[in-house]
């Protein structure tokens, strides 16, 4: 193998061709391992340069044949885009991968071929990194794009009415702007793979025919800048020992929130404040049993799917999603049971009805309501794969060494005659300290990082378990002796029972690691008080902090809180600047562009 064949886009980049001699000299006599290391090293350098010099990159004309753009909140769209990028490179396509917060619609005018992989959040909102892109694209400022051909892969959750809304909006808007739809939009539900795979197969076939550079097929997998030293990842998780599983809401709290401590000892795993921990849950024995009895199957039955043969019980426990109901599963159940009711729900014009059905029913509910003659293999193939859940990390390695801490709200509710539990929170909250292990990996969240400057002030808004990353932030900033100030807004229902990490915040205040703490306990008085109300009450001081360069972080519920907090921030800015609504929104948008208004909402 020759060093020159490592990077397929070398042909398209003359300045790199010019370096070929140097590279040959450098790589002469090196083994595969060393060459791979150099590849990774160079990719890392490139990524660092790109991050440090966004404006310069943006000004350059697109050199790649294909740009893959993504907007991702929880990492699914990012992962899908990365996979597409890898596959494109392997197919000999000079592709580049870009996140939408480093990209503007104006740049589209210089593109010829683009794939967009975008997720939709909550009630039809874009992911935070795509917010600005979508706003501009929908505005009059968007350029005409007659030269562009594009394809969109939307990701979403069919249990929300505006399923894959952002994908649809981008798709339709690009057509309006004169671009050519290269091929049909894909819409992936929570069971991403079932849509992603056929869509990417089709996409790659079409693109290879039109874009691939002859003889440039890479024979090694490029090592990407995003990969860190961790050898553990989503598909190869680390089995972390549970060190503590401590309820941190009082006995009279209806909410059961756990502080979970896991050991990463000897894993070599590192993480940064703001990162998330991916947790591979298992389904509880009770829920597996319930599915088995509803489908009248025995756990011992051997089932082979793909290369794997396992007893049905094990498939259900470790490999299959048996809680959250998805459209594909409902489709298969409708086919098997012949239920007119289900088929009616699945009809195209029933989108709103379906999404409400999906969000109010669990797999068990429909299995019970529509009994049909399942065989073990059909059940396993009908069910989607069990997916990992992401939790914002609540610790700094500088304080907890090789541990990682999580703040987990356990979720349980009554519906259709039985108690349902959130799969991962139930799994985590039933782990026994110093006995059980949990399969985990780090999901980096580069969009939710501490400011590089330790003198910068932080405004942290994290009600409920949204406070988790701020525990990590305050730990980290204390450990590095940061001189910037810290202001935390926390809320929950009750002061006495749900003030998460109360004693730690009190200590932090005493030690000067936290300068201000504003609390909103919604149900301790007649009128409901939320963090957004506290923001408005503190308008003057907040604006002074912003003017002083503070970064604003928001973490927690995306459905209501994030929007309420956003509006409150606009109110605060409008009130203090007196320049009207648009001026306030522009001010906040500038903070966003400058990466000073950061959100980790879910």
């Amino acid at each position, binding site marked *: 193998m020759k060093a020159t064949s490592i990077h397929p886009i070398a042909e398209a980049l003359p300045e790199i061709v010019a370096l070929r001699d140097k590279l040959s000299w450098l790589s002469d006599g090196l083994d595969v391992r060393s060459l791979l290391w150099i590849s990774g090293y160079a990719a890392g350098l490139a990524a660092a340069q790109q991050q440090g010099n966004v404006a310069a990159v943006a000004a350059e004309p697109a050199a790649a044949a294909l740009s893959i753009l993504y907007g991702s909140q929880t990492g699914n769209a990012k992962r899908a885009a990365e996979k597409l990028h890898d596959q494109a490179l392997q197919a000999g396509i000079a592709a580049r991968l870009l996140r939408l917060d480093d990209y503007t619609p104006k740049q589209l005018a210089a593109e010829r071929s683009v794939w967009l992989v975008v997720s939709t959040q909550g009630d039809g909102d874009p992911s935070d990194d795509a917010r600005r892109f979508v706003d501009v694209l929908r505005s009059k400022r968007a350029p005409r794009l007659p030269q562009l051909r594009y394809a969109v892969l939307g990701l979403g959750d069919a249990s929300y009415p505006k399923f894959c809304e952002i994908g649809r909006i981008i798709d339709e808007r690009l057509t309006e702007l004169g671009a050519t739809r290269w091929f049909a939009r894909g819409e992936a539900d929570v069971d991403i793979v079932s849509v992603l795979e056929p869509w990417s197969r089709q996409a790659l076939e079409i693109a290879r025919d039109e874009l691939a550079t002859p003889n440039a097929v890479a024979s090694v997998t490029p090592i990407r800048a995003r990969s860190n030293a961790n050898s553990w990842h989503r598909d190869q998780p680390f089995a972390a020992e549970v060190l503590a599983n*401590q*309820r*941190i*809401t*009082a*006995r009279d709290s209806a909410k059961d929130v756990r*502080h979970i401590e896991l050991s990463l000892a000897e894993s070599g795993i590192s993480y940064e404040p703001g990162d998330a921990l991916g947790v591979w849950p298992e389904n509880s024995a009770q829920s597996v049993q319930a599915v088995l009895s509803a489908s009248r199957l025995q756990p011992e039955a051997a089932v082979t799917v793909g290369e794997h043969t396992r007893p049905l019980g094990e498939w259900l426990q470790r490999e299959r999603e048996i809680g959250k109901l998805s459209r594909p599963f409902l489709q298969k159940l409708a086919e098997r049971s012949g239920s007119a009711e289900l088929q009616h729900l699945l009809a195209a014009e029933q989108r709103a009805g379906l999404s409400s059905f999906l969000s109010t029913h669990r797999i068990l509910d429909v299995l019970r309501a529509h009994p049909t003659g399942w065989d073990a293999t059909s059940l396993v193939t009908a069910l989607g794969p069990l997916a990992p859940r992401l939790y914002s990390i609540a610790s700094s390695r500088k304080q907890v060494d090789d541990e990682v801490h999580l703040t987990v709200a356990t979720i349980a509710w009554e519906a259709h005659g039985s108690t349902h539990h959130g799969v991962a929170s139930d799994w985590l909250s039933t782990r026994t300290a110093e006995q059980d292990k949990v399969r985990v990996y780090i999901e980096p969240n580069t969009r939710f990082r501490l400011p590089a400057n330790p003198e910068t002030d932080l405004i942290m808004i994290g009600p409920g378990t949204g406070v988790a990353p701020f525990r990590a932030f305050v730990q980290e900033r204390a450990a590095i002796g940061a001189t910037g100030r810290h202001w935390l807004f926390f809320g929950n229902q009750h*002061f*006495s*029972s749900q*003030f*998460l*990490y*109360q*004693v*730690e*915040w*009190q200590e932090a*205040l005493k030690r000067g690691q936290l300068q201000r*703490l504003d*609390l909103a306990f919604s149900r*301790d008085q007649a009128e409901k008080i939320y963090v957004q109300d506290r923001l408005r009450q503190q308008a003057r001081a907040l604006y002074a902090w912003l003017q002083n360069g503070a970064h604003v972080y928001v973490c927690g519920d995306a459905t209501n809180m994030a929007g309420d907090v956003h509006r409150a921030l606009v109110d605060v800015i409008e009130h203090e600047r007196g320049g009207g609504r648009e001026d306030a929104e522009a001010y906040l948008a500038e903070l966003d562009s400058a990466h000073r208004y950061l959100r980790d909402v879910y």
Partner: protein
Amino acid sequence: MTDNNTLSAVEGIKVRSRLLRGTLVESLADPITGALAEDDQMLIKFHGSYQQDDRDIREERRQQKLEPAYSFMIRTRLPGGVCSPAQWLALDGLADQYANGSLRLTTRQAFQLHGVIKRELKPTIAAMNAVLIDTIAACGDVNRNVMSAANPHISGAHAEALEWARRLSEHLLPKTHAYHEIWLDGVRVDEVRVDEGAGELGESATGESEPIYGPTYLPRKFKAAIAVPPLNDVDIFSQDLGFIAIIEDGKLIGFNLCVGGGMGSTHGDTTTFPRLADVIGFVTPDQLLAAAEAVVTAQRDFGNRIVRKHARLKYTIETHGIDWFKAEVEQRLSFRFAAARAFHFEHSGDRFGWVRGESGNWHLTVRIEAGRVADRNGRNWRQALAAIARIHDGEFRITPNQNLIIANVADAQRAGIDALLQTHGVDAGTAQSPLRLNALACVSYPTCPLAMAEAERYLPDFGAKLELLLVQHGLRDVPIGLRITGCPNGCARPFLAEIALVGKAPGRYNLYLGGDRRGQRLNALYRENIVEADILATLDPLLADFARGRSGDEGFADFLIRSEAIPAPPSVQFAASTRQSAERAL
């Protein structure tokens, strides 16, 4: 030990407090914690409240990374323990609205609410004041709630005693405006009272000063009571300052004055001890306030402000001698004390059931175990008493034995009250054994920060076991006084009981024996740090001996001393002039 010359930390807090203000307003407003700032935790006692926490869940909450479940006990100032039905209903409502759903009747004839959280403290205290019940000086280094004989059946003298208790309480109230500022937004429930205090000095721009106490108040708590013989329900010899009513031909002619009583002690520290008050003379009613003030100011000036556990009046007197103290007090007065008069106490308990008073009205004394008015186990005292309060025209009187008198009931109302008790599963308790009827217990766990062992929650259990033992020895109907406290601080006056359990550690108690039933003799430590089985095993042979050797209606501890099972502990030392008559009476 504390440095010989350094004032105790609490003195510094008082000096800096600007007449009991401290940073209470800021502490109450601090949303980060359910507690007060440290200094304010001391100051709030002067306002009638203690910061506490639910000790049952303290460790659990520590693990939950939550601060302790802080709440506040609020104690009323209620001279003589008398309240109206309307006041009763108001407090009953507050028990549900802000507290733990119960009312606690205390051994100082006050109400306590428990479990009031910080942000509801102010509305609770304001609501109490709205029905003219304040909490000023119910705790703290000041004169506390003034007690007065509760037994109403000698009501003429009793009414006078009560009136003097009220005047004494008013006279010794702190005059700071802090209470009204903090809890009532500056509104004064009784403007006259405050203005009088200011007028006496007339020097400060705000008209605010403490003419009796001075800016640092007393070195330690100060307790006063008025007893009306032959009943010593107030345990007059346990008080810092006691007045024993002297009645001749049905008329109150004055009071014997006694000083220097007190219960509190520290386990294992022999420099601390319970002490019986000394009778030092006789005063006429019109001399009472001046005499009381002189005792208070002498203690203010000579009490130990360096070592807080030696700060009570009893230690001042032990240090300087009773004769010196008497002279010091007299020197502050325009008169000398007359010789103490003869008096006689029969017992210190309550008389249960209906009693007819001089006016012809009726008084019903009901047994409230450990003073806890709650609806529990089908015995719905709160509902019963609230229902009675709605139809009652008389008043309620809390007894110093944690019981309640429904007082001044017209003949026609009696049946209705009996019926309401029955409806709610309760009765006066007359069928209970004397042991159960007379036992006392302090609050202790889960709220009292000083508690070392259970008391109130343990009384029913231990009472039943001891009662069983009495039954086995044929002693079921013999009155034997039992008191249980969670610590040696002495809230249920344990050191006067025939049998006392004083908490050492969870499930462990010091066993004291030897008090009498008149409240005139201390008990003494008999066994240290023992568990229930050992307590019962220790008492069993003593009770067996008592059952065999009792003479007449001899008391249990009297028998133990006579039979030399225990040495005689200290008892009240009467001055020469009272000795003869007192001895005759005894």
